[in-house]
């Protein structure tokens, strides 16, 4: 057992940072699930590794580098989709794996030693106070933009044609949403790592589905479940001495399985009545 004071210190920071992140990925993740964009989120997260390699080579801020590359990959997908040559599925496969591979090749050529495990699974226990500030300020901006464009984004998600015919601009909301996604990936990258970002985006949202009666409820419940998964996963990793990032995902999975097992339809029927 290490010194209790120090332990509490980095552990508390990890919990605060993780919960801040979950509050953002919860509502954003709902749109990923509703729009069937899980693979897209994955692709953007994979491209983050290329962002890391390039920012190390060019010596720019890593969060900024990851954001630019993730946004560029999203833009590339939008352009390729317009040409309608390959299915979106195949395009995502090409973008996802090539961005990941180019990232590794660039890192190797420039002689930079990239701690692959670190970027794949993150190191939430190494979170600094500055990181927490970035997470909460960035998260607040992301949530504010999401709240401001909630109605048009939801309308465009249900049916883009209806939204456009009735005076909204679904193309614009879609691009803004992708930029929000790129931002959260850039912020989350260092904390939960590439592979776990999509997990935090998708699993809490999927868990919230059966507990919610409206899209707004689902977004809030999803944020709560994400926070619960972070806290549960971190306490579990402390208790069982397991790696923190994967433990958070395992905790999220456990909550998901519980939500499936619960006879929630009875509970919801009562609440709606």
């Amino acid at each position, binding site marked *: 057992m290490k010194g209790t004071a120090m332990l509490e210190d980095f552990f508390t920071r990890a919990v605060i940072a993780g919960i801040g992140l979950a509050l953002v990925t919860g509502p954003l993740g709902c749109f990923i699930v509703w729009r069937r964009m899980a693979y897209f989120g994955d692709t953007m997260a994979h491209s983050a590794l290329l962002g890391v390699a390039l920012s190390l080579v060019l010596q720019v801020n890593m969060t900024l580098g990851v954001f630019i590359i993730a946004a560029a990959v999203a833009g590339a997908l939008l352009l390729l989709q317009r040409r309608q040559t390959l299915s979106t599925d195949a395009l995502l496969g090409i973008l996802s794996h090539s961005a990941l591979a180019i990232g590794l090749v660039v890192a190797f050529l420039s002689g930079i030693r990239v701690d692959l495990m670190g970027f794949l699974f993150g190191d939430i226990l190494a979170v600094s106070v500055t990181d927490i500030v970035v997470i909460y300020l960035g998260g607040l901006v992301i949530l504010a933009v999401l709240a401001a464009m909630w109605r048009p984004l939801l309308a465009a998600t249900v049916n883009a*044609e209806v939204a*456009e015919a*009735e*005076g909204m601009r679904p193309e614009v909301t879609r691009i803004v949403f992708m930029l929000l996604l790129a931002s959260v990936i850039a912020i989350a990258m260092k904390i939960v790592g590439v592979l776990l970002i999509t997990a935090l985006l998708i699993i809490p949202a999927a868990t919230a589905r059966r507990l919610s009666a409206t899209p707004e409820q*689902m977004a809030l419940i999803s944020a709560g479940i994400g926070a619960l998964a972070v806290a549960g996963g971190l306490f579990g990793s402390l208790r069982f001495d397991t790696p923190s990032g994967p433990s958070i995902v395992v905790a999220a999975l456990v909550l998901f399985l519980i939500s499936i097992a619960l006879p929630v339809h009875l509970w919801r029927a009562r609440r709606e009545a």
Partner: protein
Amino acid sequence: MDVHRGHEVLVDVAGAGVRRDGRWLVEAVDVTIRKGEIVTLIGPNGSGKSTTAKLVTGVLKPDAGSVSRKSGLRIGYVPQKLSIDWTMPLTVRRLMSLTGSYPKAEIDAALAATGVVHLANAEVQHLSGGEFQRALLARAMIRKPDLLVLDEPVQGVDFSGEVALYDLIGQIRDETGCGILLISHDLHVVMAATDTVICLNGHVCCRGTPESVARSPEYLSLFGARAANALAVYQHHHDHTHLPDGRVEEADGRIVDAHEHVHEHDHEGHRHA
């Protein structure tokens, strides 16, 4: 159509064409919709009905010709396809405020007008085809639109439901005075309330009142002689009411089983197929 000649023009599509991949989806289409007028587009599959509707709503821009809308035109749109992913918890009530927010009383009134107020708290994924179309109609109506665009509003609805929906659409026009653009794949029933029928086949092949279109040689050559008898002008008289339990109340107040009841409205031109 003459009745509406002096009325304000809501949308004027003049010589418009849409070109995709070197092929004209529609060419030289003229459609004018005035306040209080019901215009029905008919035509075979792939004849450009939905494309024309999208020109009217502004979802598609014309590659030739022009589309002008009354400034500030408010459109209510019921698209041909609207599938709501199971992952989105959406009640009928929440669907109503998809593109704008309305007080509860207004939502209830719109749902009552289309006869689905009892389903306000039901999830949209659980509705039958007819119930869902009625909910969509209520949603388009609540905007108090100048123009309702209904792309095959009776799909997935059985024959008696179809008749009731057409009645409802005519009633909405009479009560609100909005213009209506109706698209029908169904050549067998074009309701009597229609002022102008436009028959499309990549271009406008003929237009006029339902009766004149049914007799026009262009219509006959497009749909064949068999269809000539099939274009029924739906004219019925409200001499009976179908009760929810399947029985029928006759005009003189007698309640009879459905099989004893005889539909006496005009069967000359159509079959109940």
